[in-house]
């Protein structure tokens, strides 16, 4: 990372300083008006916001289902749902939260909005493809919801065979829904990779790329490599159900354990799709709010890339008691551990970044701290589960349920909330009420631990997962966990209220750089203009060089582009190069 090169960099460009005002005359939302303009827009920011709306909606549905599940578990046997309804509700909850919320959450909403701005581009590389992937997402979601209406699926989000091949419920439409969603995921990944390679502004070398962009790069690689495997698996499942070709169903001569190999070959890498973007956000937040260069930039950037590849070799840790060979289990356990270590080291890196920093505990930073707390617990319990003999006892109990909620909700979802609070002023031009934001964060932290820490104890004591009924000795722990969900729900409701309120007439107007950030998104107006910048920024310093005056970040060259999405402009430096 160059730190001391002069203003004229070594780029051979004639640089000019562009001081952008806080607020533009016409921002991206005002530039194209009306509902039709939104629905047909190819602007990555609007597409990002539409994703945000859809994801928030599905999170709301998934959350309601979770409240139902926990309420039903207030007593053993029937509280108010019957067994089949309960089984359908947990399947829908899991499938919605994973496929409709977590997988797209950070990349499709925040990534879409910010990745192009952070590399100084006017849009993603293929704006139309981006809009298409949003509609594919909606189509997939509709298909999945359609299956709710028509008889509901009760297989769990894992769709294990032969059960899923034999139940009389609409597994086919649900799996087709997930299959379609996969394409949306692949297209977004493709778009990001090309954008990162081709549309970075001059001076933005890989070493100056914000870590959020690196994390999306790693995520995109997994999306492109892993999602097709899921698609193939689901297709095979559909073929088995409709054409009676025996693949996984022993009744037709298939092998049910084969399905599990296929499924986890996708779904383990998918857990990295569901966490790496979160790591990216946490790196941004901790750097900004500690006003400090990230400790071990290259380690964080490259270990994510390494995990994206090596993460493909550990799927068998979900199958230690499934009947796979003992030797495979041993090898998978060993690799699992070694993939876990770099993740642990990242936690040390983040804490070390705070050392000798200038720490400001604003809302996003609170979320980053909550993330560190919860994700660390999730990681340690992952090590417990990766240990062969211990996993025999804990597999398919509430311990696993607690583990993946600590990493997915305590990790990714908390990071998402952190990112939302970090970038809300930039996206909307408004600042939320920080007092309420901190209260909500506190409630979510408390409610989360009440709900899920309890489940570690339940699981260790032997309470199996996906149980509608349970033996009496578990009741008090179940009830405590259920009360936790009410605290969580209160926290989320408060967030919804103050965010909406900030958009209203009384909302506080935000400045263009409320947190004193250094990456490109903080240098454009708030909210940004349609094509993000009125000039082509040139990057001289690293994204975490807080010791350099902000003025040195404001250099660029005239932008000659006309018309939206004339992507080539960013690249045609030829005109501006000083011979």
């Amino acid at each position, binding site marked *: 990372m160059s730190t001391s090169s002069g203003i004229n960099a070594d780029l051979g460009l004639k640089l000019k300083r562009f001081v952008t005002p806080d607020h533009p005359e016409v921002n991206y939302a005002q530039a194209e008006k009306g509902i039709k303009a939104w629905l047909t827009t190819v602007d990555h920011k609007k597409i990002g916001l539409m994703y945000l709306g859809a994801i928030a909606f599905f999170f709301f549905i998934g959350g309601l289902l979770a409240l139902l599940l926990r309420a039903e578990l207030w007593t053993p046997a029937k509280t108010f749902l019957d067994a089949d309804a309960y*089984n359908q509700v947990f399947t829908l909850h899991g499938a919605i939260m994973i496929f409709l919320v977590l997988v797209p959450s950070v990349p499709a909403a925040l990534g879409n909005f910010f990745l192009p701005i952070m590399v100084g581009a006017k849009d993603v590389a293929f704006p139309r493809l981006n809009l298409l992937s949003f509609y594919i997402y909606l189509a997939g979601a509709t298909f999945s919801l359609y299956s709710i209406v028509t008889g509901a699926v009760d297989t769990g989000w894992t769709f294990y065979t032969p059960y899923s091949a034999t139940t009389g419920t609409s597994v086919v439409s649900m799996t087709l829904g997930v299959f379609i969603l996969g394409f949306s995921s692949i297209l977004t990944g493709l778009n990001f990779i090309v954008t990162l390679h081709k549309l970075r502004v001059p001076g933005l070398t890989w070493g100056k790329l914000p870590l959020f962009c690196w994390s999306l790069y790693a995520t995109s690689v997994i999306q492109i490599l892993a999602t097709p495997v899921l698609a193939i698996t689901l297709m095979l499942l559909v073929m088995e159900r409709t054409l009676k070709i025996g693949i996984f169903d022993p009744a037709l001569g298939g092998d049910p354990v084969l399905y599990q190999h296929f499924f986890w070959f996708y779904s383990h890498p998918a857990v990295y799709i569901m966490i790496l973007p979160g790591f990216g956000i946490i790196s941004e937040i901790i750097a900004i709010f500690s006003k400090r260069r990230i400790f071990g930039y290259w380690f964080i950037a490259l270990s994510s890339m390494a995990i994206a590849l090596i993460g493909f070799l550990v799927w068998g840790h979900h199958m230690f008691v499934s009947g796979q060979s003992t030797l495979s289990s041993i090898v998978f356990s060993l690799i699992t551990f070694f993939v876990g270590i770099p993740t642990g080291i990242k936690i040390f890196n983040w804490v070390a970044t705070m050392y000798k920093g*200038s720490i400001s505990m604003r809302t996003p930073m609170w979320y980053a701290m909550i993330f560190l707390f919860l994700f660390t617990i999730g990681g340690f319990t992952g090590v417990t589960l990766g240990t062969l003999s211990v996993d025999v006892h804990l597999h398919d109990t509430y311990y696993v349920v607690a583990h993946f909620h600590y990493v997915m909700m305590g990790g990714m979802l908390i990071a998402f909330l952190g990112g939302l609070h970090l970038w809300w002023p930039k996206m909307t031009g408004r600042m939320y009420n920080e007092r309420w934001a901190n209260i909500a964060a506190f409630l979510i932290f408390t409610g989360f631990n009440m709900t899920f820490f309890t489940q570690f104890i339940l699981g260790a004591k*032997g309470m199996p997962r996906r149980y509608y009924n349970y033996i009496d000795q578990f009741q008090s722990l179940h009830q405590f966990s259920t009360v936790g969900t009410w605290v969580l729900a209160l926290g989320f409701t408060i967030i919804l209220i103050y965010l909406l309120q900030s958009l209203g007439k009384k909302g506080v107007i935000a400045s263009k750089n409320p947190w004193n950030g250094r990456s490109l998104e903080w240098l454009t107006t708030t909210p940004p203009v349609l094509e993000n910048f009125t000039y082509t920024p040139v990057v001289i310093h690293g994204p975490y060089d807080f010791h350099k005056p902000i003025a040195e970040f404001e250099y660029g060259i005239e932008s000659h582009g006309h018309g939206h999405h004339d992507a080539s402009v960013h690249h045609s430096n030829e005109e501006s190069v000083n011979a």
Partner: protein
Amino acid sequence: MDKLGSLFLPPAKSTNAADVDALFGFISITSVIIFVGILIATIAFIIIYKRKSDNDVTSLNDHNTTLEIVWSIIPVFLIVYVFYWGFTDYLKLNIPPANAYEVQVIGQKWNWAFKYNNGYTSPNELHVPKGRPVKLVMQSRDVLHSFYIPDFRIKHDVIPNRYTTVWFEAIESGESVIFCTEYCGTSHSDMLAKVIVHEEEDFQKWLKESGGRPADMPLADYGKMLYTKSGCQTCHSTDGSKLVGPSYKGLFGSKKTFTDGSSLVADETYIKSSILNPSEHVVAGFAPVMPTYQGILSNDDIDAIIEFIKEQK
């Protein structure tokens, strides 16, 4: 340590349980120590390096080779140690001693059956001797199930068309619960059974007397016992309410209509064939989900159940 363990873990009632618990304890305690370390450092930094003004000057240092090597090497050592420990215990859990006493296990929606070498099949109750290794050879008749005894720290999936095994050696007599831990549909959470550990001589006695009705027990009462023990009650009520299957109330002698439109009067033959070959006649209004009890209930058992059903008027 034992006290602490009992807060989080079920009682340890097999020879392997103590090893698993020790490793669980080691990982958990090491994790807590490191976690608390991280927490203290974070809180300390938040307090010590609290922002004083927007112009605060911060350190530019962004690596420290010694520190990075130390915090990479220590986890590697810990991890290798934990892996190795888990690996050796896992081998123990997976290799049954050669002299193990063998019991066949059949899992099906939604009950377990245990078959002994004397030909007796015990539904939903696994009887084993204390202090002798027991090996279970398991198979499923329908979908995946998983056989789990928390007190023994053992678990293994039960798969159609394939045999899988687990083994354990119980160290105290008494009862423990058996769960199904692979989701298998509606009554997955009711697919419970019991393991009953006897002293060796009691076990031999049980084995000898098993398979029949105690001499002083009326046939219908024995039928009732089988009705509860074999899991019929998860699907059939005796009070007229409709569960997964039809109620036994008023069943005997009534006229039944089937999904194919045919009909029959429910007599002994019909009931027997319903138990052994349930898909032959599927009662109208119900799904064909009743499992067969072929090879699980003997002819005598079925006679007793028929007597019991006759009494449900």
